[in-house]
């Protein structure tokens, strides 16, 4: 039905897609499996006409398809269910569906449309009240509306971008039943995911992407979890590289979570009863596929998100209700996931942003001692071997990597005793990434505790003294240094195995 032939796409120095071939057949669920950054999203955007490939082509029924925009794709019967649904919460289900109908009359025939929604809904297990407002619906029902929208707009090829990420387990089961019903009627489904168990449960055909290339393909009944894990994460499924010398000290806990829970709203992940201790002089690695609750956990530790259960302890004191300011005064540094949104004020200059969160350190009367601030920050940039950006330029003008450097330099400037780092090397070139890792290591050697959150298993293996695995908001595995095999960690990350060394 749809054939992808030799598609390549380059973003800057990254080859996101490198000569990808893929065939989607009618009446089949084709799973596209891969880690974050493997090129799944890029490929789906190309098929949906969002981005145009540098090379290669898409064939529809044997003919080259002209896909210059999502509109072209929709006209050709290609529909996509996005992770963040494109629904309007204030409008009803019916109205959201009507917006995308091809044959919408001048005056809406509400009962007619409602009837069509019910008919299609009944046929594919997508029952939703057509008159309900979308904002009143659960996430699972919203997804049903998205699918209904595509079906009524006469899409024959459906792309699902990580559709299970937002769903509860029983809803996932329901979605697979919908897949089965669609398959039976000859729809073609492209199912993008990084959860192995799901792929094995529902896919007829599997394509594994790794670093922008097709790492392997399987027909019905051919795939095994072990092989898939190896393909996803590379052949280095053996022992972890021992790049970091372990240190002896560090038994004193700095921060402890005891049965900590936090409710996640909407597409956020709910954290369930986490027990976690970060010791002095230790790098605690946290592995997990994106959206497993990493951001929520970081927020919880810093106090950006209230605990709904359990306690947070800081150096032997119950810190459950401490303010962010109090934690920061005690030397907690935070490198968040999205630096521009969470750690910087876009409209202010680099200098002003460097002064944020430093509290009263640079106070001079009611004013700020800018010279002392600049000296301290300059020293921090130097220690990281980062180039100092122009202090007067607005921070929003910096590139992602430079912004990340500013945030890291600021957070490291005052010898923090606890560093919460979410993907600190994301967006940095290899040399800067290495110096960030080096600095975190030196901070650890100086007695600081580090929580190092990453999706890059190799990096985690290199950095961690201890490794935890997070999956769907729960800690599902713990490994002391040197005891993990990447393959085991990979299985836990993707939810394809229930227990390990916990």
């Amino acid at each position, binding site marked *: 039905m749809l054939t992808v032939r030799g598609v390549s796409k380059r973003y800057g120095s990254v080859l996101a897609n490198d000569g990808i071939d893929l065939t989607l057949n009618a009446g089949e669920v084709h799973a596209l499996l891969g880690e974050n950054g493997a090129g799944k999203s890029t490929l789906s955007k190309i098929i949906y006409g969002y981005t145009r490939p540098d090379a290669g082509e898409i064939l529809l029924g044997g003919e080259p398809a002209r896909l210059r925009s*999502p509109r072209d794709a929709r006209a050709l019967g290609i529909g996509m269910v996005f992770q963040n649904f494109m629904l*309007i919460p*204030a*409008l009803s289900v019916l*109205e959201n569906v009507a*917006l995308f109908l091809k044959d919408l009359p001048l005056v*809406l025939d509400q009962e007619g449309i409602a009837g069509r929604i019910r008919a299609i809904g009944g046929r594919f297990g997508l029952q939703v009240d057509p008159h309900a407002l979308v904002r009143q619906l659960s996430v699972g029902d919203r997804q049903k509306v998205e699918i209904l929208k595509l079906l009524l707009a006469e899409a024959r090829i459906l792309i699902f971008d990580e559709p299970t990420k937002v769903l509860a387990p029983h809803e996932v089961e329901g979605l697979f039943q919908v897949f089965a019903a669609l398959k039976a009627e000859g729809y073609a489904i492209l199912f993008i995911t990084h959860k192995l168990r799901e792929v094995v449960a529902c896919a007829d055909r599997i394509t594994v992407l790794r670093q922008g290339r097709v790492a392997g393909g399987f027909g019905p009944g051919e795939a095994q979890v072990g092989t898939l894990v190896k393909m996803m994460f590379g052949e280095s499924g053996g022992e972890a590289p021992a790049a970091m010398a372990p240190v002896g000290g560090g038994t004193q806990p700095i921060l402890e979570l005891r049965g900590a829970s936090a409710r996640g709203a909407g597409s956020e992940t709910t954290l369930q009863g986490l027990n976690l201790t970060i010791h002095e002089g230790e790098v605690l690695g946290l592995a997990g596929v994106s959206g497993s609750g990493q951001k929520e956990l970081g927020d919880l530790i810093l106090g950006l998100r209230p605990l709904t259960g359990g306690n947070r302890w800081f150096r032997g004191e119950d810190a459950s209700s401490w303010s962010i300011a109090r934690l920061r005064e005690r030397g907690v540094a935070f490198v968040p996931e999205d630096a521009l949104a969470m750690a910087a004020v876009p409209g202010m200059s680099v200098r002003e942003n460097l002064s944020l969160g430093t509290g009263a350190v640079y106070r001079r009367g009611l004013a700020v001692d800018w010279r002392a601030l600049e000296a301290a920050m300059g020293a921090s940039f130097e220690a990281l071997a980062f180039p100092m950006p122009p202090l007067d330029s607005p921070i929003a003008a910096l590139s992602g990597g430079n912004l990340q450097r500013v945030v890291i330099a600021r957070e490291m400037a005052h010898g923090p005793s606890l560093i919460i780092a979410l993907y600190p090397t994301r967006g940095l070139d290899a040399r800067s990434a290495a110096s960030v890792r080096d600095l975190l290591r030196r901070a650890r050697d100086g007695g600081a505790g580090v929580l190092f959150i990453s999706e890059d298993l190799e990096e985690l293996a290199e950095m961690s003294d201890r490794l935890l695995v997070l999956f769907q908001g729960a800690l599902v595995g713990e490994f002391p240094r040197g005891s993990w095999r990447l393959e085991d960690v990979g299985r836990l990350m993707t939810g394809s195995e229930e227990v390990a060394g916990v």
Partner: protein
Amino acid sequence: MMTPLALGVLAGAVLSGTSLLYATLGETLVERSGIVNLGLEGVLLMGASVGFTVTAVTGNPWIGLAAAALTGGLANALFGWLVVLRKANQLASGLAMMFFGFGLSALVGAPHVGAVIVGLPKWRPAWLAALPWVSASTLFNYDLLTWLALPVALLVWWVLFKTRWGLGVRAVGESPGAAYASGRNPAVLQFQALGFGGVLAGLAGAHLSLSLTLTWAEYMTAGRGFIAIALVIFSKWNPLRAVAGALLFGGAEALQLQLQARGSLISPFILDMMPYVLTLLVLLAWGGSRRLAAPAGLGRTFFGSE
């Protein structure tokens, strides 16, 4: 039996509520498409002034009415050029439009201050006039705009909620990105909403000078444009609720006029403030309400997809 005061208030509520209702309906249309036009006061003034001037020159109030409607549409088109095409800040542009309206209406109307015009004709169906307590009052003695106020409110509601165009307008006001993804052009829909909203605002202004007062005076709208903006919030962006809101505020205005006319002991300055105090109370009461049905994209500029 109704007292003369109550009858007076009721009749006045309908008469001064008419222009409020047209203005509110116009602004509702505009805001449903995601645009706040704080310049409404200026548009009303331009409608009142142009309507009066054209009527004074031609002697025909219907031509004046048409000219006022056209003026309103053009004024909103100018506003649309600023905020939709040039993507200027809506609040600042709205205030600028308001002062522009002050100035232009004063300029246009100046030669005809004090002119005597024939206003819009009023009539009362015979069977209503035959009711005992109606005959002695001005109740049900209305011009065409007042008689049409309720049907127009129904029409605006029907268009917004029951037609393809209305669905598109509401989608743009909630999420221009989603509307764009559905193959609609947000700018076109916003311009159309602004145009129709402007026509309604022009009619609202004309009703003041061609029916309610039969005069033109600088700044004769006295904040009605802003009351209408508050009424849009009061009515939760729903044209049918706007009818009740317009009557309530029209009633407040009528009551204070009646009290003043009857030599009330309350200071006239306090009475003058009544509609505005009511406005404050409405905003206060509706303030943090989570059920507030404001279009999600209201006041935001759409810079295109992605």
